[in-house]
Every structure is written in structure tokens, then in C-alpha cells.
């Protein structure tokens, strides 16, 4: 009978545990969870953190979404915009360029030809300035928000949590999830922080305060 690597490793672990029996541990979870903060405080905290990590921040009410988005795209001279299939099209009513609706069939190199991408978001953590994308239809597959050089991301204030634990409880583990805190960055050359290596070099966040 051949012994598989799996059996061997599991047997080794049991041997190790027999040789050095473990003492049981209680896990103290005295860190902060279930926090709440008023809207204004969450907005202020999130804005501070996003700006600190060199993201561009725009704040507006829901009725101004199309205008604000159009302004951001115009300023960046976006003519070819990628969107996920489930995005609310009314957001684009003031945008005049071309729109490419992404799907799993679009070859990834074509995403490289886009000037930018516009998506929604699942959850956002204010304390760390982290946006969570979970690949829902209004956010799209992961490649869509990765390959283009500009990501415009709409965040509704109701989805903004104070801290990390409050954000993690809102996630769906089976969804591929990407946490984004500012544009991509490196400090690999003499520890000098540089924005933008492989991911989008610009992250523009549109926070809607009444949604």
C-alpha cells in the first residue's frame, strides 16, 4: 500500500502533537467590533484616509452622480470607458464618450485599450480607506478593475463601515474579493513611495452621501 503525501503529512502532524501536546487556548476577542459612527464622521474619516493614500475624492448626492462622473471622466480625457454589465446606466447620462460593456468573453488585452473603468463597490472601511469589490454585476470581474489605468469607483455612504471587523462581516466569502486602498504603490526603490506600478495609477472615488 503506498502512503500518500497527504497521509504522511497528517500523520506527522499527529506525531508532532503527541510529542509536544498542546495546551488549550481561549481566543480573547477584546478588540473593537460592531462599531458605529454617525454619517458625517464616517465620511470625514474615509475622506481623510483616501486622500492620505493619494486617491482622488469627490463627494456628492445621488442626483448629481451623472454630472460628477462626467466631470471626472472629462478631466481625465476618457474616451473609451469600460463598465461592468450590471452598472446603473443612468450614471452615464452626462458622459459623451464610448462605453464598452465588459463580459467574460472580452479578451483581457482589450481591457488594456480602455482609458478607464467605472464601477460600484460592495463595502468600504473608513478607518483604513479600503474599498472592497466583490465581483457583483455592478463591479464586474476582477480583470476589469485591474488592467485599465484609471478606476472611478462609486461608494455609497451607507456601505461605509467604521473599521475592518465591521467590513469583513458584510462580505460574502465565496465571491472573489479585492481590497483596494489607494492606487497601486511600491516602495521598492530606496523606499521612496511611488504611486502606480501595475494596477490603475489613478483611483477616483465618488462618495454618495445620501445613498
Amino acid at each position, binding site marked *: 500500500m503506498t502512503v500518500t503525501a497527504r497521509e504522511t503529512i497528517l500523520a506527522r502532524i499527529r*506525531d508532532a502533537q503527541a510529542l509536544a501536546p*498542546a495546551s488549550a487556548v481561549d481566543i*480573547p476577542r477584546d*478588540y473593537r467590533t460592531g462599531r458605529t459612527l454617525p454619517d458625517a464622521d464616517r465620511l470625514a474619516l474615509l475622506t481623510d484616509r483616501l486622500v492620505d493614500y493619494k486617491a482622488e475624492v469627490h463627494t456628492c448626492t445621488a442626483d448629481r452622480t451623472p454630472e460628477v462622473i462626467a466631470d471626472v471622466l472629462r478631466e481625465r480625457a476618457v474616451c473609451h470607458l469600460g463598465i461592468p454589465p450590471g452598472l446603473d446606466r443612468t450614471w452615464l447620462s452626462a458622459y459623451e464618450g464610448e462605453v464598452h460593456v465588459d463580459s467574460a468573453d472580452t479578451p483581457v488585452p482589450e481591457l488594456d485599450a480602455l482609458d478607464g473603468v467605472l464601477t460600484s463597490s460592495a463595502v468600504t472601511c473608513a478607518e*483604513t480607506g479600503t474599498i472592497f469589490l466583490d465581483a457583483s454585476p455592478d463591479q464586474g470581474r476582477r480583470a476589469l478593475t485591474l488592467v485599465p489605468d484609471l478606476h472611478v469607483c462609486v461608494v455609497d455612504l451607507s456601505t461605509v463601515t467604521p473599521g475592518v*471587523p465591521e467590513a469583513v462581516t458584510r462580505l460574502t466569502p465565496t*465571491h472573489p*474579493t479585492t481590497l483596494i486602498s489607494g492606487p497601486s504603490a511600491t516602495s*521598492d526603490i530606496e523606499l521612496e513611495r511611488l504611486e502606480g506600478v501595475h494596477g490603475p495609477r489613478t483611483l477616483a472615488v465618488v462618495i454618495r452621501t445620501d445613498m
Partner: protein
Amino acid sequence: MSTPTYLGMPALPPRSPYGTGNLRGDRTFPRAAHDELRNGQLRRNLGKATHTIRAKRLAVTGELPDWEALRDAGSAIKTDTMNRLPELLEQLEAKVTEAGGTVHWARDGAEANDIVTRLVQQTGSDEVIKVKSMATQEIGLNEHLADQGIKAHETDLAELIVQLADDKPSHILVPAIHRNRDEIREIFRAGIPGVDPELDSVPAHLAAAARAYLREKFLTTPVAVSGANFGIAETGTLSVVESEGNGRMCLTLPDTLITVMGIEKVLPRYADLEVFLQLLPRSSTGERMNPYTSLWTGVTPGDGPQNFHLVLLDNGRTAALADRIGRQALNCIRCSACLNVCPVYERAGGHAYGSTYPGPIGAVVTPQLAGMDVSADDPNSSLPYASTLCGACYDACPVKIDIPSLLVELRHQHTEATGRTAEKLAMKAAAAVMGRPGVYRAAQKAAGLGRVVAGRDGKISHLPPPFNGWSDSRDTPAPPKRSFRAWLASAEGASALRAAAEEGARTRTEADGPDEEEQ
């Protein structure tokens, strides 16, 4: 999927096989450190890096009122994980399989290398893109793939620099920190095909050159190899924490993804991420959150790689687990905070440790994974002495690994096995990095109390040499007759160590000129 029942006497699990992978240098620590110290560029770069990251880390950890509670939770979760390792690994395997992935088990590095090679060959590709992974570096995967005619492209900027220069990483987090911008420009001009010959050494231009070169690789290479920071047993979710986006590229664009993960990286619950996503970035880069973290569970139709393989690696980890004290080292989340606070690392640099894992954690994890050979002049046997036992690493560690105690335990095991005096070895290692053997000897003579170190009987007879400034003229109680470990664990031991470390730091400062920063 039956679990083998346990029969007979437990056997000590094997270490990583001698002579394989990158868990052993070719020279002892004092010798290697001696040479590294001559590299002024390395010392300057490293000093700047460690001090900068240290200051950032202190700022962002100080920001959280519940930082200590997070550390306590992190430490307990990892200990609980090690206690329940078999069931958690089986659960992880079941969940990954359920989600469309395939799980492989590798007893050692050679087996993992073979598995990865076979999986790559099955795709028909002779190239892979890689995201920085310590596990694959530990097992020497790139070298093995090259022997099999498969080219592995490192995609992390620092790893790319290291790879193009045919060099070795010197820091867990910033592996090319020993290179300055001019060197990097030369490395790129020589190593990147078609790079602009006029490329200057402005960091942004260097990064742009890497972006252009790698983008083509990301878009065309059908297979990626990654490591993993965490693997969640409850859901089968894997995680890679990164900054540049090269990780997202590798995890998202290819058809096939192969993830090599040490068995100790499993975590019980998805909710445990709420602890580790706070501990890791703040301790590692000193950021509130790193720019990108990817979480994925098996295969998602229409999104990302459609073939996913997880290789679970032992390679000496079960041997470490069999050591009641040493197993703590498996709790490490590879944040590198302990490197950045270590006076020995700062002077010697990462290469002196001869292993994928440098610094304080490397000094405890390397000998445990790969063993300390008794007969030969094994470089790994010198690692537990590459420390002043000042305790800064313990204070910095987000999962509270008691590295000084582990070092003392390893020293003890080594002297037990070889009969060599720990004192002599510690003296050699410490003197090599602190640079002034004369200062050391004089200080030791002055220390009338003698030096405390666990002798062969495990009793205190001497003070370790790094406590060079410590003397009984300071009204220190005579060391009690108990094991060094017990003494170290006591409040008295801790305060004595601190006093000695401070004294040592002062002595060093006087000998070397002013330090730039107070810790």
C-alpha cells in the same frame, strides 16, 4: 478521504532534507556577516529602510486603541490553529475542492517542486509569472523550473531587480533594499530586453520601465505561481496581500493558478481576517492597509483562472510543530517587523543568514525547518547566536512570538547536542556584527558579574556577551539558580535584559558615533 488512524509510537517528523532549497547558507553567520559588513551601501540602505519602516509602524500601531487586544487575539488564533492543524487542513482541502480547486500535498520542497513542474507542463507553457512568495523561494522553485526548461518571471518590482541581477533577497518586505537607484538602472539596462538605453535613475522612470516590461508578460503568460498569506479552512478562501498590483495580475489574468502554501498558513474562520487584516499591514509596511489584498475561493466561472491548484507544503514545518517551545515560530505572519527593529539584522543584512528567512524570525525558523547539523560546521547552528536577545523583536511582533526565548531554547538544544559552549558561539556571532571585538572583550571583563547563559546543565552561569555594558556595580541581584529560560520569563529577567540591552545600545553608540534615531 479517510483519516489514517494513529498507531504506535510517535516519530519525530523530518526536517527539510539537507542540501535542498534555500534554508541554509554556505557560511556560518559570523563569517557571512563579516563580509556583508564591508558593504557600506548595504548598511546605509538597510539602516535607512529599517528606521523608516519602524517609525511608520509605530505611528500606525499607536493609532489603534485596541492594538494590544488585536495582538492577543492574533497570537491565540495562531496557537489554536497549530493545535487543530490536521482538521483545519482537511477542512481547507474539502472547501477548496468543493469550490473547483485541486489540492496537492508536498512532504518537502523537492516534492512541491515536482508537483508545480508537472502542473506547468500540463498547460503546455514554458513560462510562468510569479508573485513574491517566500515558500517558493524556500524550496528553490525557480531554480528547479529553470532546470526543467521553464522560465519563471518574478513580477514584484524588488524581486524582479533581484532576479535580473542574479542576486538574493535581503529583506522579507523590501528584498532589493540593498540596491540603490543607480544600481537598479544598470540592472534594468542590462536585463530588460528592449529597454530605453537612455533610462535614467529616477525611481518613477525605473518603475515605469518595469511596468511596461511586465505588462506584456501578464497579458500573455497562461500560468501563474503564487504564495498565500492566509488560507481559510472554513470557506477555502485564499489570500494574497500586496502593494503593486502584480499579485492581482498573477491571480486574475492567467488560465491556471498554482498556489504554494506552507501548512501553517491556514486560519480557522473567515472572520479571523478581521484580526489579521489589521495586524499584518500595520506591522509590515506601516500602512493602515496595503494597497491591494486579493481573496479568492477555488474557481469562479468567468472571472479569473479557471484552473486552480493549491500545494500544501510541509518541508520541516511538522518538525517545528513537534517542539513545544519552537512551534511558536510557525505562528509567524511574515510581516518583517522583527527585522526592522533588530540591531543585529540592521548591521549584518539579510544575506548573512543564508536562508530565505532572515532576521530574528529567520534565526529561529530556519534551524527548525532545516535543522542544526551536529557534526559539520553547519551555518544553521550559528543562527540562534545571531542575536543580542534584546527583546525588541518580541515587542514588535504582531502575534507575540517570544523570539528571545526561542533563540535561547535553540542555543540550549545546540550546546546539548554538540558540547560546544554557547558563550563562545554567541561571542563570535555578536562580535562579528557589532564590529568591535575589542570593545566586547573589554566590556565582558568589566562585567564582574559574569555572563548568564544556559550552560549544558541549563543553569545560569554567565551573561550572554551582548550585555556587554552590564555589571554588578549597578546593584543587580545575582542571577538565581534556575534555567535561563525561566529566569528570562520572569519579571526580573525581563527588566534585567532591558537594562542590559539599553546599556549595550549606549556602548554601541559611543563606539560608532551617534545613532540617527531613538527607539
